[in-house]
């Protein structure tokens, strides 16, 4: 026992804050919300056991749940590839020996830092109004503008554009990844007369696959978590016509507007399972398409 303590004490001491945080703020709440998801709970009385009632209601009767899923999945499916392609494209342009790289890098990264702020969400709302700047710019090219945000058919795209605007952080990770590819591989390919196109698919892509994979997982999770901008742009409700009813916004309203805590907990657990599922899928399939140069660190 004494020997055990001597060997382990320091580690546990340093980890104490994390232990407290993990059990009180992560693991405990996750289990608690699992329990709550089987109850009806309005925060006034005690939670009342309701079995699978919440889940039954969610999957069979709640149209808004399905709407929220549709909105969120559409957003993820559009925003993640758009942002990653943008990030990879610009990263490859920047990687090839430009001297002014740090200038561009700074400009492209800035929106990623600002993007989560309320100020930008407010700005975005105004940019895409009927009398907003986007329409003014389009008018220059003779294109008839529209009320992009108040039209349920287009409102989601304004958020996809916002996501693309924030391509900076995956771009930086791609840049670091591209730096890690030995330059002599390209020189060797050059000498062998390999075309640029082939170099991209045969050298860049396979060696960058771990980074792409990493970005994909991270960005997908980030996209599922989107809240502030959707909340502000949709006036906190998911309007117009629930076209911006992001899952997180839906969950927030169920919990803190209607105080259906039990139902919201069920929603939270479904979100956890969805994200867990996507993470697991990407990890399980990664071995088929990801080539790690060093299996060990």
């Amino acid at each position: 026992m004494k020997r055990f303590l001597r060997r382990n004490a320091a580690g546990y001491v340093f980890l104490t804050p994390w232990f407290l945080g993990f059990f009180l703020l992560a693991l405990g709440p996750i289990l608690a919300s699992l329990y709550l998801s089987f109850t009806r709970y309005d925060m006034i009385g005690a939670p009342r056991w309701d079995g699978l009632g919440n889940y039954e209601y969610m999957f069979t009767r709640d149209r808004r749940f399905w709407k929220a899923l549709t909105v969120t999945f559409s957003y993820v499916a559009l925003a993640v590839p758009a942002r990653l392609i943008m990030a990879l494209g610009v990263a490859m342009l920047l990687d090839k020996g430009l001297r002014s790289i740090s200038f561009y890098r700074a400009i492209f990264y800035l929106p990623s830092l600002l993007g989560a702020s309320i100020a930008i969400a407010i700005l975005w709302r105004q940019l895409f109004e009927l009398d907003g700047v986007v329409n003014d710019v389009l008018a220059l090219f003779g294109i008839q503008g529209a009320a992009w945000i108040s039209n349920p058919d287009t409102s989601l795209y304004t958020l996809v554009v916002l996501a693309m605007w924030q391509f900076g952080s995956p771009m930086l990770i791609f840049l670091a990844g591209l730096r890690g590819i030995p330059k002599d591989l390209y020189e060797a390919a050059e000498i062998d007369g390999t075309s640029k196109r082939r170099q991209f698919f045969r050298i860049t892509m396979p060696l960058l696959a771990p980074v792409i994979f990493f970005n994909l997982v991270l960005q997908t999770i980030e996209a599922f978590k989107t809240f502030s901008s959707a909340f502000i742009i949709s006036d906190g409700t998911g309007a117009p016509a629930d076209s911006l009813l992001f899952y997180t916004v839906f969950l927030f309203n169920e919990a803190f507007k209607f105080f259906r805590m039990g139902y919201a907990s069920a929603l939270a657990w479904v979100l956890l399972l969805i994200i867990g599922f996507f993470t697991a899928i990407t990890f399980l399939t990664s071995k088929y398409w990801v080539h790690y140069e060093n299996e060990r660190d």
Partner: protein
Amino acid sequence: MKTNATDMPDQNTALALKAARKKREARSRIYKHIFLLLVSVIMLYPLAWLFAASLKPENEIFNSIGLWPSEFKWDNYTEGWNALPLSFTVFYKNSTIVTLLSVIGNLLSCSFAAYAFARLRFTGKNLFFGLMMMTLMIPYHVVLIPQYVLFLKLGWVDTYLPLIVPRFLASDAFFIFLMVQFFRQLPRELDEAAMIDGCSPYKIFWVIILPLSLPAMGTAAIFSLIWVWEDFLAPLIYLNDIQSYTVPLALRLFLDQEGQSAYGQMFAMSVLSLVPVIIFFAAFQKLIVRGIATSGMK
């Protein structure tokens, strides 16, 4: 062995080819710059527009893509500062308190945890490290409700404790991961030399690891500062009294008053809310970029 006569043309064509390639490369570099500049303009235009709009008279803000205001309406800033029931002085003070305490909490608790994971040996380390990495994936929304119930029972709602205390408990695993990555790059022999020199693991942390990790600490401090400053969801849930509002919550109040058409003032305050972020970004750009590269995140 070739004679000089046959050598010469070879050399000339080689030189010509090289010159042509140089020219081609120069031209493609110019195209690249034009393209990148174009992207930069598109990226910066919304920000520039926001700044311009904050200085424009109300009737010029919309229906004009031009950036230059006909008159500079600095009043937007002074009036905007006091446009809400409470002055922005209060909101900035609130945001500053929350941000500073949160940053300190993040740095301390996360560097402790990171040191344990990166450097110390203890039973269950791999298990805990895995759990820590899993919490990276968990959306805040999943733990939101039980956390809210917990803090409500503790009587912490409408105080800053729900915003600050979690940060002292290493709740943001991203920073732990960032620091673990950095600590692992420091040679382990330094710790061992210090052990032989009579340092306990605690002293090694304070005297060796921390002083050598200032860049990582700086990166973490800047990221955490910016994120806490911009944080919206947690203040939205836990702060109900306008007295305790942070800047993002105050900005949202402008939206609720929309009928009064105070766009210039709203934009002015929006610009001000971004200023600290932009200043820190400009000052610590290198650290931020390196931080992302080492952690491979955000």
